[in-house]
């Protein structure tokens, strides 16, 4: 991308073909990873992948469109429960199981997207901190409902204890296929002509509206797309962890994703991916380290919090700011990036 002049983007079919090629490569990589790495390492890799989907999808809402949401874990919960409950109830096996897994994951995403539509509508009226607190309220409502409801019709949801016995389907290949779809999807959405309104809302909502941008539509669109991928990540995690409980999708989980986005740089897709990888890997690494470093893993959340505060005091734009990882500081900002 970098070498090409900006006014001549790659043709769509070429990108789609590349995407398919990368997915095929992932299938090969999956075999290599499973054969050569320990189960623990694969698990960490999968957690990193899930964190990446969550961080990049929240980045669309928080960083790119500038609608500060504190309820991303709720969308994840909706996806996880949709996928988990259905698979737990029907327990499909063999190739049918894999097909059902793919279908259910997409369904989880769609149900979460529907919830995103419902939450996106308040976003029309609310700005900044009010929106943050409303989405936080939404998260709490979802958790409370999940804790109180034990079953819906014939389907068991488990109530406060949680749902157990979800079949195992998620592996390296599926997680990173979705990472690919999420990152490329959001990347192309934002870089396309249709994506510029998202950025314009972040920069100045009133000016964007005055220029004829349908701010309502794009704010809701950001919520719907972001929620879809969060739902997918939730469904994937349900079929990896094999059990889900309402409290694992609480406010803290939402904040964890926000920390990733903020740390990576609100608006930077690669920044969010980098922060997701580092913040997932680091505690795992600290945990297996001997001596005083081991204690750091216990202090992980205190360190997160301090990092967040210090980051806001010293470098509020995040590690990468609005730049992507390969944009150097010296380059003049393109009209898309705007002044940083």
């Amino acid at each position, binding site marked *: 991308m970098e070498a090409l002049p900006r006014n001549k983007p790659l043709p769509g079919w070429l990108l789609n073909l590349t995407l398919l090629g990368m997915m095929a490569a992932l299938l090969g990589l999956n075999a290599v990873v499973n054969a050569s790495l320990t189960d623990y390492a694969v698990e960490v890799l999968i957690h990193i992948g899930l964190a990446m989907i969550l961080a990049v999808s929240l980045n669309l809402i928080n960083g790119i469109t500038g609608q*500060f949401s*504190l309820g991303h874990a709720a969308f994840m919960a909706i996806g996880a429960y949709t996928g988990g409950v259905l698979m737990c109830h029907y327990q499909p096996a063999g190739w049918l199981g894999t097909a059902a897994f793919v279908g259910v994951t997409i369904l989880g995403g769609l149900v979460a997207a529907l919830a995103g539509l419902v939450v996106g509508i*308040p976003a029309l*009226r*609310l700005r*900044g*901190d*009010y929106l*943050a*607190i*409303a989405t*936080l*309220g*939404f998260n*709490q*409502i979802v958790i*409370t*409902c999940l*804790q*109180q409801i034990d079953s819906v019709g014939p389907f068991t949801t488990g109530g406060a204890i949680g749902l157990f016995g979800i079949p195992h389907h998620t592996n390296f290949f599926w997680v990173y296929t979705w990472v690919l779809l999420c990152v490329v999807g959001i990347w192309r959405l934002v870089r396309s002509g249709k994506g510029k309104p998202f950025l314009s809302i972040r920069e100045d909502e*009133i*000016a964007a509206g005055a220029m004829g941008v349908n701010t309502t539509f794009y704010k809701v669109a950001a919520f719907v797309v972001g929620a879809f991928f969060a739902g997918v990540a939730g469904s994937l995690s349900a079929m990896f962890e094999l059990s889900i409980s309402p409290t694992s999708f609480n*406010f803290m989980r939402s*904040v964890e994703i*926000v920390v990733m986005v*903020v740390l990576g740089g609100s608006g930077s897709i690669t920044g969010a991916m980098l922060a997701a990888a580092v913040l997932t890997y680091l505690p795992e690494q600290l945990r297996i380290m001997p001596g005083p470093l081991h204690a750091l893993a*216990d*202090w992980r*959340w*205190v360190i*997160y*919090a*301090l*990092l*967040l*505060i210090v980051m*806001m*005091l010293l470098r*509020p734009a995040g590690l990468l700011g609005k730049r992507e990882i390969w944009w150097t500081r010296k380059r003049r900002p393109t009209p898309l990036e705007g002044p940083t």
Partner: protein
Amino acid sequence: MQVFLQQLINGLSIGAVYALIALGYTMVYGILRLINFAHGDVYMVGAVLAYYLSCWAQKHVHSTVAALAIVLAGAMIGCAVLGFLIEFLCYRPLRNRPRLVALITAIGVSLFLENLFQYDGIFGANPRQMAQLIVVKPIVSFHIGGSPTAVVISSVDAITLGLSLVLMLALSWLVLKTRTGLAMRAVSFRFDTAALMGINTNRIISITFVIGSALAAVAGCIDAMRYDINPLMGVRPGIVAFTAAVLGGIGSIPGAVLGGLMIGMVETLLKGLILPSAYSGFADAAAFVVLIFILLLKPSGLLGKKALEKV
């Protein structure tokens, strides 16, 4: 009728605590336009201080009143210092930055306090109970319309209601009748103009944080007498009290009290009277449903003023 009245008293007692916390939110928001996410955790620190002070007071102080006074005063001073430090270290350097930056910092401070207190050397993640300084017993009980069970006001409820009333009266005296209060109102009305008129805005903001945190400490002490103390106890009351502040009209001091009492009563009435017991857990979500509807229908709240959006 008897159940209704009893739940009303319980609701008032719980609502008074929400109101005390909501006052801190509303005062800070009125001046800085900042949701002080860490406020709920200041309340938690108040409860933790009450725990340690009550353990000490039980051994060394023999008079109940003196012990209670020590616990309250100690927690208030401790939290006031904490509130001052939070503002001075974390919010003051961000005064002219976008509001979201300050909001994320506030979330950071909140997480920091919650997790710091989960560390065993400081408090630990396990819930603990405050040393019992006063016995929870009914001090007023009366019968209505020949019903067999009495309506009861317990000692903790009485202390809660009395204390909140005194503090709220003191606060309204401070805000309405003193020069500091006048300055606070001026700063909240027009920040820049107040600074041009010679008001030391930084000092006023510090005072606001100190007062709000001291009120949260009192709320923490009261809830420490009623419930278990743990480092995450401030999360829910924090959000609920914020809801109360929004319901009453954020920035409005009488609004915060009204909102707090209303939310407290709605919660207890839903839990104890309206919802069947199998569904009473849903009452926990009531405050958040109220919050979202208020934000959608009347964001300025019951007693708030409508803010105009300026380009």
